[in-house]
């Protein structure tokens, strides 16, 4: 590639206090390429994104636009220069409609101010391109994480930028949406746009990208043509060592029923959902984005009220709409939206981990800081958390490490029924294996696990049984043997009812 890159970084470094997030990294983005950025959680990928988008100013090194050095004083400057970004965490305005979220600051105008009709049409057109069913007039509040991510994608596309940066755009998406996104990305690439793509799913990188740059601990490792390397090579570059097999679910004998959901209904959301999870079992709940899986989980855990049906834990009916009662019965829920539901961003790592189990760290009426810290430290080690100090607020952690804190918070409680909603969203390959091993161990020790996941390989690799939801109903139950990519997708898209 000998043409000048549209945007490049040269020897860029960035530190946050003592944490050197990015160290002398160089990166070129050429028109007509999809460039992958790979690295473990906390390797510095999002920091690079934020440098390219003007959010952070590098401590040293330069940003070059069309070969000329530039300084971005803020995101507005980067946008001016034709850089569009999908950030790792959705950045929507919950009170505004989806279409306004997409076009904020660039709303189509007519003589009488903002032209809502034109804006609606433009948004609808974008959704068609992405194959999304969203009402442009709907407020962004209440969108599922996946839908939020799709709005973010639409927003970035609408900018018709020269450079499109996508920080884990697929983390919350399932196969269908990913395929559509890749279609759009390919078109853009062919039109001469430069794309930067970040994902923890290796197969996606190999499918979409032309080159890949790897980071490890903030430092540049290598840039390779995708065609030249294998997934194993890439993992070795990222992790610096060999990895174990990915999905080590051990066979266990299912025990008695731990969680029994009977004809659960929440009007307008999901209908007549019945299933059981036994001790020692991992049951996956699969389906397309928006099928209502997370909603079922929330209702079981008592976040939302249900209109009909029942939930039993170890044979005892659960009081509706009380997370406290659910927790007392031994239930735990790792929610899908870590920023809103999983973590208190301003609180420290240790306090977040301690929050769900204050009873365990109490000495008399007082909280024992030592016990709290020990509990946090133990789990930080087990989950290979990358952090500076346990007293740091969680919002300085990288996305994947935040997810680990959420996991730690719930695992530390030692639940008997564990519901995990997208447990490995944004988690790197190495840790993902770790999480899977953990889930598998928990199951082996008699915990009943209900796992919601949009990643088919994860579902197929981990689950003893697969339940499939489609438009708010349970449409299929597949045993481990029956569950294949085809059968699950068929049920999830409503092509086959069981």
């Amino acid at each position, binding site marked *: 590639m000998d043409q000048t890159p549209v945007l490049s970084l040269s020897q860029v470094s960035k530190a946050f206090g003592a944490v050197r997030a990015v160290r002398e990294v160089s990166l070129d983005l050429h028109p007509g390429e999809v460039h992958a950025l790979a690295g473990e959680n906390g390797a510095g990928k999002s920091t690079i994104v934020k440098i390219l*988008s003007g*959010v952070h100013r590098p401590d040293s090194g330069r940003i070059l636009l069309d070969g000329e050095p530039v300084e971005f004083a*803020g*995101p*507005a400057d980067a*946008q*001016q220069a034709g850089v569009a*970004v999908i*950030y790792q965490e959705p*950045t*929507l*305005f*919950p*009170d*505004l409609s989806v279409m*306004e979220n997409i076009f*904020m*600051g*660039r*709303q189509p*105008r007519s003589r*009488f*101010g*903002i032209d809502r009709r034109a804006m*609606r*049409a433009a948004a*609808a057109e974008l*959704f*068609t391109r992405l*194959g*999304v*069913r*969203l*009402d*442009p*007039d*709907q*407020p962004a*509040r*209440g969108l599922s994480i996946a839908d939020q991510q799709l709005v973010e994608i639409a927003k970035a596309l609408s900018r018709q930028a020269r450079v499109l940066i996508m920080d884990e755009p697929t983390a919350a998406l399932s196969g269908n949406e990913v395929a559509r996104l890749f279609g759009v990305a390919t078109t853009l690439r062919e039109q001469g746009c430069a794309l930067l793509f970040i994902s923890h799913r290796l197969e996606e990188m190999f499918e979409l990208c032309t080159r890949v740059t790897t980071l490890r601990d903030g430092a540049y490792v290598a840039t390779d043509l995708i065609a030249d390397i294998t997934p194993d090579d890439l993992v070795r570059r990222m992790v610096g060592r060999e990895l174990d097999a990915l999905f080590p679910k051990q066979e266990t004998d299912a025990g008695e029923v731990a969680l029994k959901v009977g004809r659960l209904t929440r*009007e*307008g*959301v999901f209908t007549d959902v019945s299933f059981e999870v036994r001790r020692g079992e991992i049951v996956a709940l699969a389906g397309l984005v*928006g099928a209502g899986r997370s909603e079922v989980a*929330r209702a079981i855990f008592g*976040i*939302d*009220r249900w209109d009909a049906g029942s939930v039993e834990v170890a044979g005892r009916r659960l009081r509706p*709409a009380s997370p406290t009662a659910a927790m007392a019965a031994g239930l735990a829920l790792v929610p899908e939206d870590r920023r809103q539901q999983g973590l208190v961003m301003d609180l420290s790592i240790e306090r977040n981990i301690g929050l769900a189990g204050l009873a365990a760290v109490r000495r008399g009426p007082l909280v024992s800081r030592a016990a709290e810290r020990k509990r946090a430290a133990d789990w930080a080690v087990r989950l290979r958390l990358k952090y500076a100090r346990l007293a740091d607020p969680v919002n300085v952690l990288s996305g994947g490490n935040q997810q680990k804190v959420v996991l730690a918070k719930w695992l530390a409680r030692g639940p008997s029924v564990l519901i995990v909603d997208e447990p490995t969203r944004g988690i790197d390959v190495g840790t993902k294996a770790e999480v899977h091993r953990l889930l598998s161990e928990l199951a082996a020790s008699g915990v009943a696990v209900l796992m919601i996941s949009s990643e088919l390989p994860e579902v197929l690799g981990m689950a003893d049984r697969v339940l499939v939801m489609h*438009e*708010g109903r349970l449409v299929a139950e597949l045993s481990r043997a029956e569950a294949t990519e085809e059968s699950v997708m068929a049920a999830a898209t409503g092509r086959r009812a069981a």
Partner: protein
Amino acid sequence: MTATATAGETVRGRGGRRLVDRVARVRELGIVVALAVLFGVTGAVNPSFLSYASLRDILLNSAIIALLAVGQTLVVITRNVDLSVSSVVGLAAFGGALVLADNPGVPIPVVIAGCVLLGAVCGAVNGLLVGAAKVPALVATLGTLYAFRGIDYAWAGGRQVNAADMPEGFLALGTSAVLGVPLLALVALVVLLVVGWMLRNLRSGRELYAIGSNPEAAVLAGIRVRRRIVAAFVANGALAGLAGVMWAARFGTVDATVATGKELDVIAAVVVGGVAIFGGSGTVYGAALGALLLSSITSALAVLRVDALAQMAINGALLIAAIALDRVLALRVAAALRRAKERPPNRITPSDHSEAR
């Protein structure tokens, strides 16, 4: 999200249903209902409450607070608040009155412009403190609430400007009417319509909502957050300045204590009007209706021969009832909408607890 919308289908063609939803979802509905109830009941007990003269008085009474509520809405939408408005009103009212009293020759429009400017300057101080120096708005404006009032006191030094000291032409502004509608109410109405239009149809207006809805995302979206926040405070200050002149013209007697404590009335109007106190949603129309509702309650109590000592308590109770009614209606509508469809268009909150703040 609607059930029938398949990929790519545009959402036209179901206009009827949409309209019903829209009306049901209008945030201001609750206040309109509350107003109707109030006028109905009071009018039934004492029909003179609905007479032209009485309605005129109510409009006049609410004009100043409505104007302030419109300005306050601009600020509240951005997830800020301006407690100092009452002090700005006092400052502008006294300043304007003093200039008129001491220099009878000064043209009235110049005085009005001067007061608006004075208000804008005060607003700019708040705006810079909040927008540029990142002082939380409540702290900053609680501070300037004291500070501006202090300036006012120092300036007045115990002096009072009386109706006799001010030109007739100026005082007439406070009482004259155009086609039967009081001038002050007209001013408030024009301001309301202009600001309402700007908030809905200008990019800058929408950006205020964006800032309040998610300040961090607003920065990432390339919005000039600081500039917008300062602008909102300046506009609010200017409106407070205007309200100050209106105050002087209306009441005729002006000293340094003018409008003390009115900030809570203004915020109550805004909140009753359905403007979210944590930013991002609400309209100036709601705020103005809120102001109208609050002054109507006061007027109604005065007319209903309610025992004077009980007025305050009833006023508070009605205020709470109005907010509660509004909230219950909103919840009902939301629940009905969820049930009415297979897929939810918009649940008010994930579960109702999280909107408690």
